């Protein structure tokens, strides 16, 4: 049996916008021990349809199985594998940096500038960063601020949302 590499994969899932569908989808992942990384959901332009962006960590074989299992749910309308197609993908992230001195605040502004994120709020000794980056870039940002501002940060992440590109160059 071939063993392929574990890697991050992405699915766009169109489902009926009904009570219990999110529980059913997330229950599949826990029930079958699939490694769910993130899941976001919201309604689409058609209010009877919700679209989920799901990130999983899996090997090829498990990923195939996940797609099939999702597909056979009555409430699932369409499964789109985003792993191999050009997409736009962003994740919203807030990072509150607390207990900063003046130098710390300056550092926070410098980081915001370099990463291209907004400073959404500011207090006497704190700064709130609002980031809409790729998940990977957000990870890097967190690593950096964790290192620079030890024990005094608060992070909330929204999970990534993704949509297929119009032109084919971007990712």
């Amino acid at each position: 049996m071939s063993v392929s590499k574990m890697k991050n994969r992405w699915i766009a899932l169109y489902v009926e916008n009904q009570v219990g569908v999110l529980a059913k989808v997330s229950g599949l992942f826990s029930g079958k021990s699939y490694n769910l990384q993130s899941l976001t959901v919201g309604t689409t332009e058609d209010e009877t349809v919700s679209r989920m962006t799901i990130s999983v960590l899996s090997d090829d074989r498990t990923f195939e199985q996940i797609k099939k299992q999702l597909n056979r749910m009555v409430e699932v309308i369409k499964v789109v594998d985003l792993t191999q197609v050009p997409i736009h993908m962003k994740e919203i992230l807030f990072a509150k940096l607390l207990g900063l001195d003046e130098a710390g605040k300056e550092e926070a502004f410098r980081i915001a500038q370099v990463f291209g994120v907004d400073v959404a709020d500011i207090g006497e000794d704190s700064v709130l960063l609002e980031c809409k980056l790729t998940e990977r870039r957000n990870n890097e940002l967190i690593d950096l601020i964790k290192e620079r501002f030890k024990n005094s940060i608060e992070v909330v992440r929204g999970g990534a949302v993704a949509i297929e590109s119009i032109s084919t160059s971007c990712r």
Partner: protein
Amino acid sequence: MNMTGRRLFLKALQEEGVEMVFGYPGGYVTDLFDELYRQEGIRLVLPRHEQGLIHAAEGYAKATGKPGVCLVTSGPGATNLVTGLADAHYDNVPLVCFTGQVPLELIGNDAFQEVDIVGMTRSITKYGVTVRNREDLGRIIKMAFYIASSGKPGPVLVDIPKDIQLASGDPEYPESVQIRGYKPASGVHVGQLKKAYKLLKSAKRPLILAGGGVNISGANELFQELVETMRIPVVTTIMGKGALPTDHSLYIGSCGMHGKYAANMAVMECDVLFSIGTRFNDRITGDLSEFAPKASIVHIDVDTAAISRNVEVDVPVVADAGTALEKLLEWAEKMDTVAWQERIEEWEKEYPLGQRRDRGMTPQMILEEVNREFPTGFLVTDVGQHQMWAIQFSELGPNRRLITSGGLGTMGFGFPAAIGAKLGRPEQDVVLITGDGGFQMNMQELATAVCEKLPIIICVFNNQYLGMVRQIQQLFYGKRYAHTCLRRRLGCPLMCKGPGADCPPYTPDFVKLAQSFGAYGARVEKAEEIAGALAEARTHTDAPTVIEFLISSEELVLPMVKSGHAMNQMILS
């Protein structure tokens, strides 16, 4: 003109052609029962426990091919369905289960007899939904019947709050329903099937593995025609048993953990394994890395998710068994399998199935007499050693079909399933093979069988143990029979290595138990008494007969492959 929900419920059942409902009343379904009470076309059967009820509905569905319909109340009525839902989900039995629910405004309040049954059963139903608007009721019931019986069949649960039952609304029951996310596989990819056929044709040692899918799709005749045209030997899973008549010259036997030696050897040695309608359960494959090691594998299944899940296959084909077989028959040509068949016959001679005939009455002897006395109809089993023996020694085919719990292995399934089968096909003989443990799990249904006047033959193989686990303890746990002895009482020695003269009597007395319900009871202790007891039971036409067969505690199910081992590592004696 508007119609109440309860009236539309009845109309829906009538338009679906439902003839029988397995129901148990309760607070939040009283209105639905009231509707059913005031009409004549649909018969209501009242099992004595909701678990018995849903297994009876499964037996009915398996015997008739029509969906079994259940109606139970909210809370405990609903939770008692859970085991049966899981069983039906695993074995692909079409069921439509209606549960009452507290009124919408009380949901979430911990109201009396409120449970989130849809949430609880999400992973063991094909589809489940609470009706939240009266206007959705008709469409949801239509969906339920369609989903339960199409594609790979399964159980559907419809939860109906009390106020929906009473609310007035649209009187129309839709004739059809469109579900955008549900498209059961129809047709077959001809190119892919051709590839599968060519692979099969190129084989020197071809083997067909038939699963329950062949039986479920009713493709037995097509299957037999293909096998006979191409002259290919066949093994089956347990659920596939009877796909080809068991006395057919090309039928080897069932394979897997308790499969026939020749069947497992054929799987090990074949060069193309052509499988139809099986999910390659671990009881069939054993150690996956050693499964069919010399073979290229074809897998035909209606469920895409079953393909390449357990076993990586060379040629996957998504199709219903019947559809695929019809196409294959257009191409089928005879293959030269004489040498391969001779090889298989050698294995059959090497280790034939069979139990010793010099130590009193054996399960094999009983099953042979059952074969003789009841050659047609339905053979129903519970779960355990008796089930494996029944599968090894029963003759099955188009006129005698097996009803058993394969995937979930549900003790307590057999007796109520036999009731459902007899209710669905009263003209057929229904014989239940059960164990003393499994029978006790739902023996309250004797009341149902007596009240419905069902002449079912109930063969209780009493070895005084939970035999299948006892066998594992005997072989792999140093004969430490932890809590598998059903004679054990307070005061028995802590460590007991087996039955002796001082053991307490068995409880219950099955003969008296049967009689107390108004059923017939008989006890058989010697081989010479078997035929007479079965013939006598046949004369009873107004009530079930319980025959308790006192069999040896030591009898094992052989061959046996230890869980997780390769299929050629069989314990043979």
